[in-house]
């Protein structure tokens, strides 16, 4: 009798211990010492008061991202120039593919990017019609990669059937043609995966007779499926979601603006581009000298690109973004800050004429 009472007691003690220790898992949120709340302004203009952290894709501690969209949008790679005996201009470029880098694609979100020259997108390759383009490609990645350029070239320079293995090198050579805005990307199967990870870039062929002087920008419309469910988690113009919304691109009123817009978005069949406050003339693939329309909306399929020419009449802050609001609310939203043009001359040639 005594022992049964003893064991019964033990049993209840055991239950009590289990019950008390389970509290650790049950009660949500441990008591936190009172802190005075701080106030934040969010990227949508809301005010948040909190004692905790703010999670907003623009990044509140102002940390530098691995990729600088401001630098990228105005950076053109003209290559190393040599004039050949017959007068042809040879442009040599060096592109290295890697697939082991981790990039902060949005504040706090780290993603394994595959890169051309350590960047997503890769460098904007720029040449003039008729130039001989020679690209020294090295694959330092762990997987096979290749360079596939849009444009006119020989089949063996197409970068599709010959993938370059780890540590391999290949020299792509072709004449820059036709005039226009093209793109390049890795064409190794599965292409979707190689593009989602970041192996692409813009390729511009300028006409021999230069285009009208203008303030020029490159916008590569891209996205990232960071959890591999076949849907993009982030959308952007030039990789970083919401970047230009908080770092408006400064331009002048009454100045010619030329935007090279490349759509390399995976998973979504169409992307689009909507400009506020003015309309643009647009040139599909930039191959024609006559604009095919005057609009403030562009609809682009995968691999489509357009050259846009426009100017602003009035100064102020103007958005440009995907009119597909899902994309814009996941990062593809940007803005121009149009300033009063005080200069007498209304244009400045932005790209250096090498020859």
């Amino acid at each position: 009798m005594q022992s049964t009472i003893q064991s019964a007691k033990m049993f209840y003690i055991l239950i009590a211990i289990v019950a008390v220790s389970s509290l650790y898992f049950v009660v949500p949120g441990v008591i936190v010492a009172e802190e005075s709340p701080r106030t934040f302004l969010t990227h949508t203009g809301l005010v948040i008061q909190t004692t905790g952290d703010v999670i907003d894709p623009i990044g509140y501690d102002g940390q530098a991202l691995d990729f600088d969209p401001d630098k990228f949008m105005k950076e053109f790679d003209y290559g190393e120039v040599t004039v050949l005996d017959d007068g042809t201009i040879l442009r040599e470029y060096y592109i290295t593919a890697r697939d082991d880098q981790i990039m902060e694609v949005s504040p706090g979100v780290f993603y394994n990017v595959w890169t051309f020259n350590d960047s997503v997108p890769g460098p904007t390759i720029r040449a003039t019609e008729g130039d001989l383009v020679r690209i020294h490609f090295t694959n330092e990645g762990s997987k096979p990669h290749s360079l596939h350029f849009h444009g006119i070239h020989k089949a063996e320079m197409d970068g599709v059937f010959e993938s370059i293995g780890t540590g391999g090198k290949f020299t792509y050579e072709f004449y820059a043609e036709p005039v226009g805005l093209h793109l390049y990307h890795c064409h190794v199967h599965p292409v979707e995966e190689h593009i989602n990870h970041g192996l692409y870039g813009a390729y511009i062929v300028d006409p021999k007779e230069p285009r009208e002087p203008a303030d020029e920008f490159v916008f590569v419309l891209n996205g990232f499926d960071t959890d591999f469910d076949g849907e993009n988690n982030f959308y952007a113009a030039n990789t970083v979601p919401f970047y230009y919304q908080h770092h408006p691109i400064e331009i002048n009123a009454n100045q010619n603006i030329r935007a090279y817009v490349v759509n390399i978005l995976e998973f979504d069949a169409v992307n689009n581009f909507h400009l506020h406050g003015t309309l643009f003339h647009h040139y599909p693939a930039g191959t024609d000298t006559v604009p095919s329309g005057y609009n403030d909306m562009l609809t682009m399929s995968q691999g489509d690109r357009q050259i846009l020419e426009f100017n602003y009449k009035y100064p102020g802050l103007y958005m440009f973004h995907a009119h597909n609001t899902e994309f814009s609310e996941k990062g593809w939203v940007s803005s121009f800050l149009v300033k009063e043009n005080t200069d007498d001359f209304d244009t400045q040639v932005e790209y250096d004429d090498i020859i």
Partner: protein
Amino acid sequence: MTSSKPVLAISAIAPIVLLIIMIAFLLGPASSFLQFGIVLPEVSIEKIEFTRNEIQATVRNTGPVNVNVVLADVNDRIQPAAIEPDTSLERFETALVRIPFDWNEGQPYEIGVTIDDGTRFAKGVEAAFPSLEPDLDLFVFLGMIGFLIGVVPIMIGLLWYPFIKKLGKNAFNFFLAFTMGLLIFLGIDAVIEATEISKNHLSSVFNGELLIATVIILSFLALYGIGKKLTQKTEFSKLSKGLAISLMIAIGIGFHNLGEGLAVGAAIALGEVALSTFFIVGFATHNTTEGLAIAAPLTSTKAKIVKMIGLGLIAGVPAIFGTWIGGFSFSPFFILIFLAIGAGAIFQVVLSIFHYMNEKSDLLSNTSLFAGISAGLIVMYLTSVII
């Protein structure tokens, strides 16, 4: 015996010491040797609340590694948010994600969070419902609900006492068996409800189903011990055996009603049920049978009204506490545990009644047993359909 005590202690402790050494070895020197496979992080959204111009989600790190919650979204659209206490979540740690959002009542929403490796976790709400303000009005309201679904129906059920008392032996056995049927049904119902809560609200890391099984068995054993003592006491006290059985039933049903009250309170707080009069009517009808279950064993003795009311309160009042606790602080874990305790208690009570009946007559030749259990189950099923 006394001389071997140190030896006994050492033999008890030695395996534990060796186990600790082995764990230390595996975590320390051998840890790199044992690393294989891919470790996937996991975050669970446990609760979503809608307050004035804000959506609040309680998230818990239910994975094996520490994570940072770096992004929040509503309906898969990125929204700025605050996270308290901070973005970093250790194993099992929770945080409150506060998303300023002008939500619309009655509309479905999906709330998502993205962690540092880009993985998104989401949970849906069928209809946005403003969180209840924890004030006196809510306290009274929840108390009323608990009273209506717990205390009142049981008291009504007890009123069958005079009727059952006048019945013959076979009819009495039938009603005892009927009670067993009711209780078996209640027990199964509680297990199913607990399983559902585990599935919908509890992260798989807690092994909800195993927890339910564990708690049911523990509760059964604990009440079996208590029941044994109570019935032993009856041999040398005024407490009659019938009353002891009734008390056991009342305690078992009390636990059950605590769990049920928790579930109802939580459902009210989360806005998961359209709380209509119909819902209350159904619940009350269903629970009236619980009063009958308490009344039946009492008929073999002289029961005073005060005692009966006391038993009714033991069984019914926990429902009020349940609705309060569930309504003011929702914890799927507590609901699950109390439903499981209730189930274990009820199964133990069924066994007690069986023993009690078996002492009085040879049960297996008694058709009223089978008829009673069947009738009890069927009545419970039919009243459950009404809810």
